[in-house]
């Protein structure tokens, strides 16, 4: 490597710095946008992948007229007798419309006396009150979004739920989920199951759905088929279905991002085409002078290759670096609105860092070599012509 050539290229770049700055700006901006959007998307995908493994293997819902309805609790006992099923239990949950801010909370009923739940609480819930099993009055554990929203509406430590019969159910807030799980729990309210039944007017003989736990993953599909034949009026959702549903969202989203990618690359190729379609008079004169003082075509091409490499590598790394900083340190302000809903209840965006090297390499291959070629080819065209003709 001839370092004098690098020095010469840098000096040549220095003379035309303002002109090249616009190229660097657009190049970096395109890389920045692509890396930012793909990083956010990868992080959300990772978040879903983490949560899917903790979901129940099968959820049984009763359908009526194409819509979900309450399911008899007795079915849980029938399901528990199927060989391969570890346990099956009924669950009561639903949506509570919070009229003040036009949002829906997810209210989940839980048996707080179960020892298994007590063990799980400590590191994921901040408890503000005494131990939950000693409280007689209605109480709830809320997601951080719900907590902030209720506080903004002057419900400091409690909330008055309006039950389906129109009565008020004053419920004390005894704890909130930590911010680590904000993406999963932002809109969630955990309440003792008997109060959730009261809130939604669901009798003890019915539940929202039934959860089936199956230890052996090989048996899930067979048990799903069995459940389908046992309860023809039910929709059986397995964990595989949920994974497929996630994949559907990401296939759809990938299409949108592909459209964004195409638009960005069209803009980039216009820039490259503009560069490749002809050199400026100043560039041609420079090549002419270099040829006149005895430089060979090979040397000129080396300079142009170094120049193209410096500009494209600098722009690529600048775009990638700022995008990673913007997404994972600043938590993607403005751009995150593309991913969160239009609702007032938005989760805090604590994205898990995920570096998708495949995407980075793809963006690198589609930009850097293309730009280098677009710098070298017109210079080669000019440098093979006689010096006086180039300068004329």
């Amino acid at each position, binding site marked *: 490597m001839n370092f004098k050539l690098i020095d010469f290229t840098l000096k040549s770049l220095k003379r035309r710095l303002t002109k090249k700055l616009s190229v660097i700006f657009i190049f970096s901006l395109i890389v920045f946008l692509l890396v930012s959007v793909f990083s956010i998307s990868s992080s959300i995908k990772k978040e879903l992948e983490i*949560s899917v493994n*903790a979901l129940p293997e099968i959820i049984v819902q009763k359908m009526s007229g194409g819509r979900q309805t309450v399911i008899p609790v007795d079915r849980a006992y029938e399901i528990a007798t199927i060989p391969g099923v570890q346990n099956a239990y009924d669950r009561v949950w639903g949506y509570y419309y919070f009229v003040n801010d036009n949002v829906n909370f*997810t209210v989940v009923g839980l048996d707080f006396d179960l020892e298994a739940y007590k063990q799980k609480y400590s590191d994921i819930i901040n408890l503000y009150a005494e131990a939950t099993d000693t409280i007689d009055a209605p109480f709830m554990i809320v997601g951080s979004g719900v907590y902030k929203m209720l506080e903004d509406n002057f419900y400091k430590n409690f909330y008055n739920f309006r039950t389906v019969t129109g009565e008020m159910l004053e419920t004390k807030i005894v704890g909130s989920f930590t911010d680590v799980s904000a993406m999963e729990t932002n809109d969630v309210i*955990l309440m003792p199951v008997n109060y959730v039944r009261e809130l939604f007017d669901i009798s003890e003989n019915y539940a929202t759905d039934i959860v089936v736990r199956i230890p052996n993953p090989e048996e899930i599909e067979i048990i799903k088929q069995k459940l389908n034949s046992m309860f023809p009026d039910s929709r059986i959702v397995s964990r595989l279905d949920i994974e497929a549903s996630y994949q559907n969202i990401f296939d759809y989203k990938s299409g949108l991002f592909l459209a964004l990618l195409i638009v960005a690359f069209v803009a980039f190729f216009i820039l490259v085409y503009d560069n490749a379609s002809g050199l400026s008079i100043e560039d041609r004169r420079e090549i002419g002078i270099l040829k006149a003082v005895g430089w060979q075509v090979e040397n000129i091409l080396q300079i142009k290759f170094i120049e193209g490499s410096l500009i494209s590598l600098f722009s690529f790394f600048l775009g990638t670096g700022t995008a*990673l900083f913007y997404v*994972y340190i600043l938590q993607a302000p403005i751009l995150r609105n593309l*991913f969160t*809903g239009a609702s*007032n209840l938005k989760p805090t965006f604590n994205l898990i860092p995920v570096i998708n090297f495949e995407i980075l390499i793809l963006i690198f291959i589609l930009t850097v070599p293309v730009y280098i070629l677009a710098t070298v080819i017109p210079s080669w065209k000019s440098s093979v012509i006689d010096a006086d003709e180039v300068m004329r």
Partner: protein
Amino acid sequence: MNFRKRHISSNVILWIFLLVISFTIAELFYFNYQSDNIETVIIQKQKVVSIIGLPDLALSTEAVWLRHRSIGNVFSVFPDDGSLLDYYPASFVYTTGKISNSPLSKKKKEQRKKNK
């Protein structure tokens, strides 16, 4: 008057170039290391999900057919509501006004009209 144009030295350009590249590479290593060391975060998230038992993220809470869509309609991108032509995240680029849509603000508007 003698105006002297200040030029940036080529060494400075080279240093900026090296600085940007090393900063980005350091960032890539740092975030990649972080993504490999989030065991406690994963365990906490999985605990939460195992308690709640519901899928999907709390990104879309404005409509019940958007929250927990995976157990509502498994294979459709446009679930339940026929008027929902586009879906996450395209529909989030623009939104209707939060205040004008709220039933409470409508009531307030009506009250103001009556007061006038």
